[in-house]
């Protein structure tokens, strides 16, 4: 995973609250393999009309938005379904950071696991950033080490959990981290299964299955 330290890029505004993962990638695209590139599905129904034509009044469709690596939105971003495809759509479209006052819990974990920074700012800071980006995508700097965001004269702090910050700064992957603990896991499992013997699944007999 590519580490993030400082993003010096363009920011784009998505001025809406409760942008759920069903909107980030509508369900009908989820049967596609990742290899097709999920960026084309990002916020599809927000960016296209019913004939599949791009609508002009969405900032994400601005000609400069394709260069943006930072998205700014309102509260409860990424609520809803656990689909990691929502994060794939953002990442495949070139985004490396989403700034919002709050995130859906599962979305935020998924983001970090794909090197996408979920940066939490105050409601007030989000509104200021949205205003600064209201006319067009504009230069933005997200500094993960210093934990602040700059757009022109405006500078606001953001928060991210210490664990996630470390993972993002280093580009660490969970499976690698856990493999250091394999012996401890085995020892835990042995003790646990002895302590709670009934937890082991007991496959039903064929007779029970057929009786259904």
């Amino acid at each position, binding site marked *: 995973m590519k580490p993030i330290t400082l993003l010096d890029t363009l920011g784009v505004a998505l001025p*809406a609250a*409760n942008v*759920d993962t*069903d*909107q980030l990638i*509508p*369900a*009908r695209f*989820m*049967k*596609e393999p*990742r290899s097709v590139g999920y960026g084309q599905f990002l916020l599809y*129904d927000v960016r296209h009309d*019913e004939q599949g034509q791009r609508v002009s009044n969405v900032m994400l469709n601005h000609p400069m938005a394709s260069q943006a690596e930072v998205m700014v939105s*309102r*509260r*409860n971003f990424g*609520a*809803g*379904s*656990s*689909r*990691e*495809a929502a*994060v794939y759509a953002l990442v495949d479209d070139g985004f490396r950071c989403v700034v919002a006052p*709050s995130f*859906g*819990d*599962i979305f935020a*974990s*998924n983001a970090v*696991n*794909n090197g996408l920074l979920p940066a939490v700012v105050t*409601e007030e800071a989000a509104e200021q950033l949205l205003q600064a980006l209201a006319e067009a995508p504009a230069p933005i700097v997200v500094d993960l080490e210093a934990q602040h965001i700059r757009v022109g004269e405006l500078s606001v702090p953001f928060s991210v959990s210490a*664990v996630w910050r*470390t993972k993002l700064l280093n580009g660490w992957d*969970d*499976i690698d*981290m*856990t*493999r250091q*603990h*394999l012996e*401890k*896991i085995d020892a*835990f*499992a042995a003790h*646990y299964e002895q302590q*709670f*013997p*009934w*937890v*082991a*699944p*007991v*496959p*039903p007999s064929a007779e029970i*299955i*057929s009786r*259904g």
Partner: protein
Amino acid sequence: MSSPKTLFDKVWQAHEVHRSDSGQSLLWVDRHFVHEGSFHAFNKLSERQLPVARPDLTFGIADHYVPTQARDLAGVADAKVRSMIEQLSHNARQHGVTLFGLEDPRQGIVHVLGPEQGLTQPGMVMVCGDSHTATHGAFGSIAFGIGASEVAHVLATQTLWQSKPKVMRITVDGQLAEGITAKDIALTWIAKLGADGARGYAIEYAGEAIRALSMEARLTLCNLSIEGGGRCGMIAPDQTTFDYLRGRPWCPKGEAFEQACAHWATLCSDPDAEFDLEVVLQADEIAPTVTWGVSPEEALPIDQYVPDPAQLGDPAKARQAQESLAYMGLAAGQKLTDITIDRVFIGSCTNARIEDLRAAAAVLAGRKSRVPGMVSPGSTLVKTQAEAEGLDRIFIDAGLEWRHSGCSMCVGMNGDLVASGERCASTTNRNFKGRQGPGARTHLMSPAMVAAAAISGRLTDVRQLASSSPRASGEPS
């Protein structure tokens, strides 16, 4: 003596394999459910050439993409949809994972099948790549949804890194009035606290009204925890729980079951346990509730009016309400019961258990639906039972379609969709924009309320329908 603990703390501590310097816990996972959407995670495992660490604790269930008109894969027109179900079977076979596939007589929605089969038990840590995994917390488990990277991690290690959430208790005092359901409790608290009101928290539901809920109603309530932003929802196991579990196919039997019950009975919050947040609701203040907008927080009692953005005060709320009304095609100040509907859907992991179907059928019996609609039972066993009780006849006689089980029109991945611009009264969990299909307009409510809406063709207070029999009221039968 050790300090008082919450139910959540007790289960969490029993599963903590390791705590890192940064405070993250590595948790042992007792049950891992995978469905068709888990193909991303299996692909990650293949890339690393890793085996499934504990296939005996991993269960594959086909639900999101299964056809509901037949159980025949060959009949599925969309090759990509077919391939999703085939990929799950292939991955399960390759890794030695028990599969409840399309043609299995036990097939169902993962959150209906798990409890029904007795795979879900108190005191467990359970995960699935589906946000409604919170459902299983009804048994006093810590159960939550995870993303594909985490699914791959659980497959590879049978553990998961988690930061311990805070714990909130939602207490519902008193007794629910006739016709008020778990769905109404959930929509009421989410409307009150917001769709992110429980973000960062595990929820324990407590109080007299919760204790009185059946196991199936508890599943509905915990299922919706995610819609209020909660990490998971839990209810302490009690006699209702034990009675439900006894004799389930995958449960321990005999002496082992008694041993388990003795342990499960200790899984409750200690009397002096402290919660990070306490919320108290009065049962008698909860009415049949419906959503009018595009977030579960946009919900109101059925006798209310669509809000007027101009009167909401807060500009952010006003803007959100304005956008919701535009998408939903509603006018400010409109009476909720004046909203006409185009179709109904009864199904989903929220409300497609046998009790839900009975509740809807009780309202529909001897009546006709004014709009088309679909009923998809939560599992094949629920379907069989409903047919044995004659519920299928009631739905069919009312003019609704009786389908096979699956996620169906809750998420529309299998092709069951609400057409653009159509308004659907649904027993599902999400009224998000486009959730039931691009441009679809969804109103969430309980199964009985959906049945009432079907009969009148508009949003309706089921309590008014229940008081008059179809004959006495002179309605067309």
